[in-house]
Each structure stands twice: as structure tokens, then as C-alpha cells.
């Protein structure tokens, strides 16, 4: 199709009005008659043996209906891979992080449930804790899990090419230590569920999950039910960003078990402080980076040793650690790469997935180090990137990295070209100093993967059913957790069928009716869900065209559908509005059931997690970014003035949404770069509120200029690739490199807070004085 009627247009969100008028129903908005409230009793220790739990005082409180503890789950544990199933729904004999759940209470209302928490008597034997991953790896450190030697939860050792030789041959070699912070998603909807285990043996839950099918499998396994007896219904989701809402939480499991015990529906809603204290966060990772380059600035080798703070359980950690390694061979050519990754158990809250998953840590290290090398070589920072960046493969060809990642399109170099002009303008023409403020400009490049592969079920599927009123029911397993995928999938269906977006009625996930799907996970929905919808819609179109051909007694090839009309191009008499043709199909003869199905076929090989070889995703997006940042040299305060972001996200299916995502990713990256960090004291989070866990507010956001670098990837519907995770990854290095450009100090540990900057400036002044 040469011309699209919808693809590439800024169609407004299909759920926008419902959301802004408060009509959209989120998990916490649902209630059922006779419903009980669940509240969790949580541990005041980060590491302790549970000696005894006595709930008798709580059970005597009027209104309390049941109490569950870890033992009631019969020893069941779960995890992302069979080998890492180390997490019980509720702690059984030991708590491994501060405020881990030890019991769940069901009571007639939330006040009573809260009151009863204080009446559960738990006897603990406190154990020495370990809170620093590097300490945790040492011999003799307290063991978080008995099965993990030196507290190592996951490790990978990959070696491609010959780094030793490359370092020996290099003109310049740098070694530095970088660290990322304990960042979190910061969505505004904390986890919530409404669960009912009906006495006939069926579980129905409405839960805030961005991957409802993961939850569905967890519940079936935990309660030893066939999957057909578990029904997860997806309400509107108030943000996801990975981690917590991909997984199942103590409150989810307790609500179901308490419902089973009481025969009543049970609701669980987390407080924001609870979410910020206990939920899965981004791993903070330490990267020891060694980089070698030639005299001309060609990067010849990278060696990374990564230590990730995994917290108390494994969760999705194997993937996080894998992605931190895999991503290093993009977006620059690299012949020698060695990776030693360790995810380490500590008594901190769990490290897990979050937007920019894995790649953000090591890309930050590599981008900063590239600048250090460029500076030492007296080379321009943009030039070194242009020189090293991977070229766009000629159509029909593939570029393969040293670790087997294959690219069919790569807009990296073009993206750098696109940001060059603003970069030079900001560097050379705008003021360098104004009062106490020193201005600097940073530039960075970043990749991200589209459609993270899974260890198990991979594909997305779609069913489209034609209704007699000319609308279509779009049934997928995809979850719109705020990214706008319901809109994009509806656009794809409408594009293929030649009908308006308003004629596509999207159904939310209901595991009883919708096809299984990994959910919003690893930037997959638009590309994989989109392909499934595209195929299903093509199927529906074929069937309806068949009916039209029979009706008009023409060949199906002569019939087409566009702008809501079914027509024969060569015969103006033969045309009919789509809804009338739908009725013809439904009512004539036996009455056809017009229904199309489709499933995605991109990227089916499994992940090579042990070898580190092969693809992590279907395709790869790229961003080049500049940032202009002002540093107050006395207070360390930052003014983030502007971002220019050129992104190759294949083809933008809906620029309004894609740009919103790219900007959102960058803003979240800005938070990570300069504000966000959980301050910890022996496993306890000291700043579990949005007053003290600081995310950027609207007034902190720079001017943003976005540039679209279109590459049209063959492995994506209409050429689409991932949008927003790459801009999330490119932002922290761009900002931190800009701070260096402005103030001459490297802040190698995120976030670059005013205090860290002042400290670095002081040290620099001291060094200078000594010289």
C-alpha cells in the first residue's frame, strides 16, 4: 500500500476522554457485594528468621474474618525461570527485605484490617543483614538464600573476540567505575486487585497488571488449578514501566487465598508509601568499565564487570543482567567484548525490570567513557560517535554484531547527523557562562530492543470479529498500561479494513476469552501485537471481500475497501458502505461468521542467555540525543534547558503517541540522571514518598525537540520498531556528559545531585591547588 489512510497520522487516543473525565475504571475502583479488605502485615526487619506467628489476637478483633501466613501457601514458590523459583507469596521462615509481607488479613473494612495488623504477634530472630552487593559477594557475608554461594543470584561470563590482545594493542585504555541509582517507575496507580475464589473452584481477579497472563499462570500454579479455572480481567492500568506490574505480589496471592478461606471477594489496594518501600525497582548496578581505542578514536574493546543489587529474590533478574551485557555491542561497531555479570542477593527490596531495562546501566558507563577517551585524544565527542557508529545495512542485508545481534535497519548514524546542527549551535553559539551558571552540552547515542524475547511463550495473537453493525471487535491479549497501544492496535485494524478507528471496539484482556500474550513487556506490543492485528484484519477483509464478490458476481481481486466503503474500482455502481456489506454478510444465506485471527511471527528464536550470543529482540531502535544543562557552580543546582532527540523507531505509526513516549522516556531518564534515588538505611527506604523520592515535575522539564529518523524495518508492521526505551537510555549519559562539559567534573554515580556536584567541584579545586 503506497498511501495509508491512518498509519502515520496523529490519531488521538481512543481512551483519552474516558481517562481525563475520570470514567475509566482502574482496579481499585471495583467492588463486589460482601467484599472484604486485605491488608498485609510486614516485617520490621530486613533479615530475620520468623520464629512464630500468633494471629489469635487479630482474629478476636470484631470484623476480622481470616488471617493467612506464608505456611498456608504449602511451600509453593515462584520465579522467572524454573531454576530461580525462590520467592514465596508471603515469607515463610525468613524475611529477606525490610517490610516483606509475613501475613495477610481479611476484614469487613479497610480500617479494621489495618487495625488488626498490629494485633498479629510475630516473633523474629534478627539476622545480620547485607546491603551492599559488593560486600555480599565476599566470603563470610550473611547468606540471603542458602542455595546461592556468595549470594550470587545469577552470573554470566561471555567473551567475544580477544579483549586482552585488543587492550594490549590499544593506543588508549581507560578503566572507570560507574553506578546507576535505585530508581523506580513512579506510576500514579499503586498495585491493586479485587479477587474472588468462588466456592465452585474458579478464581476471578481484576488486577492492575501490565502482563495479565503472567498473573494468570502464577495464580493457577499457586492454587494448583487448571488454567481454565483462573480468570484475570484487565481494568484500565495507571502506568506500568516494567517490574512490579508484570509480576504478582504478596497482596495478590493473599487476596485470593483469603477469598478461598472466607468465600467472599477480597480487595487489596497498596498505599503509595508501601509501593515505594516494597515493590520491585530498577536494579542499581555497578559497572567496572574498561575501554580501549586507537589513536583515531576507534573503539576496539570493551570489558564490563557488572554487579547488580538484586535484593531479596531473583524475580526477573536473569533477564536484567542479560540485557545489561547484550546491549553493550550496540550502537557502535565493536570487535572485542567481554562481560562478567553478577546479580547479587542483598537484604534490599528486589531489583527488577524497568523501562530501559538492563541497557541503561552499561550504556551510561560506555557513553561517558567514550567522552573521556575523546577528551583525552583531543577529539570531538560527536565525531567519535559518528566514527564508531554502526551503519544502516543496505536493504536486504543484515549487520551482525560480535555477539550475534542482527540488525536489518540502523538509523544511528543518521540520527547523529540530525542532532549535529543543534549540537554545534548549542556548543559554539550559546553562552558558556551566565552569572553563577556554567552551561554545557552533552551528546549520546543509545539502542533499545523491540519485543524482548521470552524464555517461554513468545507470540502475540489477535482475533477480529465483524459485527452486523459494521463495527469490529478487536480481541487481543495485549495490555495498554498507558503507552497508547489500544489506539495503535485499533488504527492497524482500521487501516487494514478501510474503516474509521471509531468502528474498532477494543476489548481489554480477559483470560477466559482473549488469546494468551506476554503483555506489555520489553517494548513488544506495537510490533508483535500489531503484526497479529494486521494479519487478523487482513483475514477479515478477505472474508468480507469474498462476500462482496459473490454479491456482485465479480472476482474478489476486484473488490477493495477504503474509507468505510466496499467497492469495485472499475464499476461505480458496485459500492456499498462497510456496515451494509457487513449486514449482507451476516444476514444472507446461512449468515457468515466473519472472524479473522492472526499471531506474530517475528523473532521466534529463544534467548541465548548463557552464551550471550544472538538476538534479544526482534529489531532495534536508536536515538541520538543532545542535552544542554546549566550548573550553578556554587550550589550544584542544575537547569536542564533543552534536549534534542533524533529517534529511529522504524516508522512512527502515530507520531502523537510515539513522540509522547519518546519525551516521556527522556523525562524519566532525566529523573534517573539527576534526581531519583532511594536513600537506604540497612535495607529500609528513607524516602518512600514523592516529596523525597524526586521525579521531575512539569516545571523541571527542558524544551524538547524531536526528530524522526525513519528506517522502515522489515520486521515490524509498516516498518515500526520500539519507541521510548532508547530515549530513556540516551538521556542519563547526555545529561551527565553535559554536566562534565559545563563544570569539568564527572559524576559517575547517578543521580548527579547538587550535593554530589558541589563535592566533586571541591575535590577538583583541591587537586588543582595541590598541583
Amino acid at each position, binding site marked *: 500500500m503506497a498511501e495509508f489512510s491512518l498509519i502515520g497520522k496523529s490519531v488521538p487516543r481512543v481512551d483519552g476522554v474516558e481517562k481525563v473525565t475520570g470514567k475509566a475504571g482502574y482496579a481499585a475502583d471495583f467492588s463486589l457485594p460482601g467484599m472484604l479488605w486485605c491488608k498485609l502485615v510486614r516485617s520490621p526487619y530486613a533479615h530475620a528468621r520468623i520464629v512464630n506467628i500468633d494471629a489469635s489476637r487479630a482474629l478476636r478483633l470484631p470484623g476480622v474474618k481470616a488471617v493467612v501466613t506464608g505456611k498456608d501457601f504449602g511451600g509453593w514458590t515462584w520465579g522467572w525461570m524454573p531454576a530461580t523459583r525462590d520467592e514465596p507469596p508471603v515469607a515463610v521462615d525468613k524475611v529477606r527485605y525490610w517490610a516483606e509481607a509475613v501475613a495477610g488479613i481479611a476484614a469487613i473494612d479497610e480500617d479494621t484490617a489495618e487495625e488488626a495488623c498490629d494485633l498479629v504477634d510475630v516473633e523474629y530472630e534478627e539476622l545480620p543483614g547485607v546491603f551492599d552487593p559488593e560486600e555480599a559477594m565476599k566470603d563470610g557475608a550473611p547468606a540471603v538464600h542458602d542455595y546461592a554461594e556468595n549470594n550470587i543470584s545469577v552470573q554470566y561470563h561471555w567473551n567475544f573476540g580477544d579483549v586482552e590482545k585488543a587492550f594490549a594493542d590499544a593506543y588508549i585504555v581507560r578503566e572507570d567505575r560507574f553506578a546507576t541509582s535505585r530508581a523506580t517507575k513512579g506510576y500514579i496507580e499503586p498495585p491493586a486487585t479485587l479477587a474472588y475464589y468462588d466456592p465452585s473452584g474458579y478464581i476471578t481477579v481484576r488486577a492492575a497488571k501490565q502482563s495479565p497472563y503472567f498473573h494468570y499462570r502464577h495464580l493457577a500454579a499457586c492454587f494448583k488449578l487448571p488454567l481454565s479455572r483462573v480468570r484475570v480481567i484487565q481494568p484500565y492500568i495507571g502506568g506500568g514501566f516494567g517490574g512490579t506490574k508484570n509480576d504478582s505480589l504478596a497482596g495478590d496471592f493473599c487476596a485470593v487465598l483469603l477469598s478461598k478461606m472466607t468465600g467472599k471477594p477480597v480487595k487489596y489496594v497498596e498505599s503509595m*508509601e508501601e509501593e515505594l*518501600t516494597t515493590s520491585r525497582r530498577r536494579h542499581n548496578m555497578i559497572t567496572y568499565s574498561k575501554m580501549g581505542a586507537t589513536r583515531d578514536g576507534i573503539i576496539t574493546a570493551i570489558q564490563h564487570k557488572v554487579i547488580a543489587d538484586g535484593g531479596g529474590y531473583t524475580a526477573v533478574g536473569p533477564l536484567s543482567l542479560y540485557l545489561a551485557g547484550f546491549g553493550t555491542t550496540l550502537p557502535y561497531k565493536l570487535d572485542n567484548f567481554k562481560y562478567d555479570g553478577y546479580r547479587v542477593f542483598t537484604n534490599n527490596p528486589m531489583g527488577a525490570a524497568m523501562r530501559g531495562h538492563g541497557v541503561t546501566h552499561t550504556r551510561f558507563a560506555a557513553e561517558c567513557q567514550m567522552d573521556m577517551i575523546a577528551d583525552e585524544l583531543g577529539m570531538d565527542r560527536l565525531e567519535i560517535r559518528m566514527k564508531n557508529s554502526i551503519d544502516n545495512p543496505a536493504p536486504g542485508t543484515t549487520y551482525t554484531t560480535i555477539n550475534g545481534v542482527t540488525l536489518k535497519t540502523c538509523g544511528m548514524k543518521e540520527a547523529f547527523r540530525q542532532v549535529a546542527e543543534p549540537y554545534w549551535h548549542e556548543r559554539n553559539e550559546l553562552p558558556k557562562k551566565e552569572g553563577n551558571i556554567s552551561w554545557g552540552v552533552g551528546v549520546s547515542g543509545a539502542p533499545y530492543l523491540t519485543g524482548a524475547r521470552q524464555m517461554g511463550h513468545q507470540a502475540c495473537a489477535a482475533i477480529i470479529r465483524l459485527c452486523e453493525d459494521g463495527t469490529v471487535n478487536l480481541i487481543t491479549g495485549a495490555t495498554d498500561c498507558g503507552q497508547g497501544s489500544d489506539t495503535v492496535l485499533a488504527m492497524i485494524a482500521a487501516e487494514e479494513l478501510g474503516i474509521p478507528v471509531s468502528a474498532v471496539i477494543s476489548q481489554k484482556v480477559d483470560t477466559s476469552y482473549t488469546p494468551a500474550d506476554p503483555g506489555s513487556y520489553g517494548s513488544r506490543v506495537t510490533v508483535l501485537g500489531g503484526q497479529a492485528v494486521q494479519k487478523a484484519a487482513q483475514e477479515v477483509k478477505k472474508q468480507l471481500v469474498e462476500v462482496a464478490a459473490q454479491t456482485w458476481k465479480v472476482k474478489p481481486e476486484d473488490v477493495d475497501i477504503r474509507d468505510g466503503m466496499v467497492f469495485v474500482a472499475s464499476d461505480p455502481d458496485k459500492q456499498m458502505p462497510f456496515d451494509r456489506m457487513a449486514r449482507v454478510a451476516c444476514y444472507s444465506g446461512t449468515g457468515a461468521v466473519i472472524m479473522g485471527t492472526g499471531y506474530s511471527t517475528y523473532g521466534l528464536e529463544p534467548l541465548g542467555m548463557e552464551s550471550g550470543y544472538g538476538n534479544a529482540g526482534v529489531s532495534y531502535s536508536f536515538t541520538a540525543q543532545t542535552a544542554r544543562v546549566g550548573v550553578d557552580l556554587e550550589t550544584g*543546582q542544575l537547569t536542564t534547558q533543552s534536549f534534542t532527540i533524533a529517534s529511529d523507531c522504524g516508522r512512527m505509526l502515530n507520531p502523537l503517541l510515539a513522540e509522547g513516549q519518546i519525551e516521556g522516556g527522556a523525562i524519566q531518564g532525566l529523573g534517573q540522571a539527576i534526581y531519583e534515588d532511594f536513600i537506604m538505611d540497612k535495607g529500609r527506604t528513607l524516602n518512600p514518598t514523592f516529596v*523525597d523520592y524526586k521525579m521531575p515535575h512539569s*516545571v523541571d522539564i527542558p524544551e524538547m525537540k524531536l526528530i524522526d529518523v525513519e528506517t522502515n524495518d522489515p520486521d515490524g508492521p509498516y516498518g515500526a520498531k520500539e519507541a521510548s526505551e532508547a530515549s530513556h537510555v540516551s538521556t542519563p549519559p547526555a545529561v551527565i556528559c553535559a554536566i562534565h562539559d559545563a563544570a569539568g567534573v564527572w559524576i559517575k554515580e547517578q543521580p548527579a545531585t547538587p550535593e554530589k556536584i558541589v563535592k566533586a567541584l571541591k575535590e577538583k579545586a583541591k587537586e588543582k591547588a595541590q598541583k
Partner: protein
Amino acid sequence: MVTFYRRLPKFDYLAPQSIEEALALLSRYQGSAKVIAGGSDVVPKLKRRAMKGIDYIVDLKGISGLDYISYDGAGLKLGPLATVRAVERSDVVLETFPMLAQAAESMASPQVRNRGTVVGNICNAVPSADMAPSLLTLDAKVSVVSEKGSRTVAIQDFFTGPTKTVLSADEIVTGIEIPNPPANSRGKYIKLTPRRAMDLAVVGVAVMVTPENGICKDLRIALGAVSPTPIRVAQAESILKGNKFSDELIDQVAEAAAEGCRPISDHRASAEYRRDMVRVLTRRAIRELLSDEAASAQGFGKGA
């Protein structure tokens, strides 16, 4: 046990119609009753169970005539229900006491400022209370009543420790009086925060200076978030008073202000950084106040 509460604890909500009625309730419930105005400090504290033993909430919002902001030529009077937002936008405040409006504007978000009161801010008495430093430099006086009688407390004597004031449980603040500042004086509040809005002060510095022919006739410096209470630093003030302005003396004042505070290290900042910033911001405030363009200047975040 660690419980994350979503619900408020149980209490009786009392809505007196007059100050007398409110005072009677406070004296009847001796310490188990708490006054609220906007409730923006009290409600989150109740929810976190950071305030124990409160069985009664005495809401002043039902009492009419307490939201006044009035100016009588000699000074400004703020009623106990005057909101932060009202002070920020009041013409007379903007004209006569711009530093107060500026401090008000630095707080929280418009929503919280519409709810919170200036009196509530000082009665809550956290070291970082944003209204405190400016009121300290303005020598404000706090009017207090109880069933036993009334008294006036100088703001310098009002704060006794973190979240502690001279108020006893049966007392209510009925207003703040702010005398006219010295002729030709100008003041400025600089609030140091990582973000541009919705942040609590890491350091707050209020400076009021009265220059006359290059001589410092009067200097008042108050600091927030760097001692157990908001404080004035008299020692620092005295260095310049009566002397000619010079960079050297200004540096000495800044140094003395930094010496004069007792910051702590917490999750917001280290003591060392806070002390350093008192030095930087005191110097910056004085310098900016002395330069003409800065006469009506604003704090950081407003293009300072």
C-alpha cells in the same frame, strides 16, 4: 510491625463556630485534641500515625472572619485562616512585604498553597518551614489566646525545637502581626531545592538589608532547615551593621552565618553541604539585594 496505612485513625471531628468555643474544646480535651487549619500538615501526619493520642480534631475553618490579610499603615496582620496562596497573591503583601509573598510562592504546589495557612506553617514548626525565615527577619509577633488569657510572642521566641513551639495544647494562634520594615530596606528569601517546585527547603535563607549611602544600616539574616528551629544569626548580622559594604565583610557575614547554624545530615542533604550552602546563599542574597536590578528580585528558579 510495619503497616502502611491508607486510612486515617479514628477521631471525632469538631467544628466550633467561634474562637471561644474552640478554646473551650481544647481545654476540655486537654492534649487529646488538635487544631487544624488547612490540615496539610496534620492530615498526612495522622495518616502516617506520626501523631498519636489525638481523639479530637478541632477545625478552625468553620469560624468566620479569620482569613484576613490587613494593613493599617503600621504593619500587616495575618489571620489564622489566611492561606499561603492568599498571602502570595495579596496586593498589599506584594507591595509592602514582597519577601513574604516570595516565600509563600516558593512553597509546595498551588493546590497545597490554597489549602495550607501561614499560621499553620509556623505552628507546625518544622526547621524547614518556608514562612519562618522571612517572618523572623521581619520581627513578626504571634498573638496567642487560651481560656486563661492572651499573650504576644515574638517570633524569635516562638520556636522551641523541631515541630515544637511555645504553644501549649489549649492555646490558639489568633494572628501574626508584622511591623513595617525599616525604610529603604529590601528583603529576599532564597530556598535551595533540587527541583523547581514541590520541594522542601534543603536550606532556606532570608535576608533583609537596609543600605544607606554605602553603609549597612541594618541587616537581618534568618535561616531555615539548618538548625533544630528556624533561626536568626545575630552574630553574622552584627558584622556588617554600621559598616561600609565590602566583599570582604559580606564574605565574613556569610562565614559567620555558616558557623552560626547547626545542620544535621539526613536523607535530604549532609550537614556539610547545608553549611556550605548557608555560606553561599547568604552571600548571594546580600549581593543580589545590593545590586539595583535585584531590588525586586526573586529566588532561584525564577531566573536569579
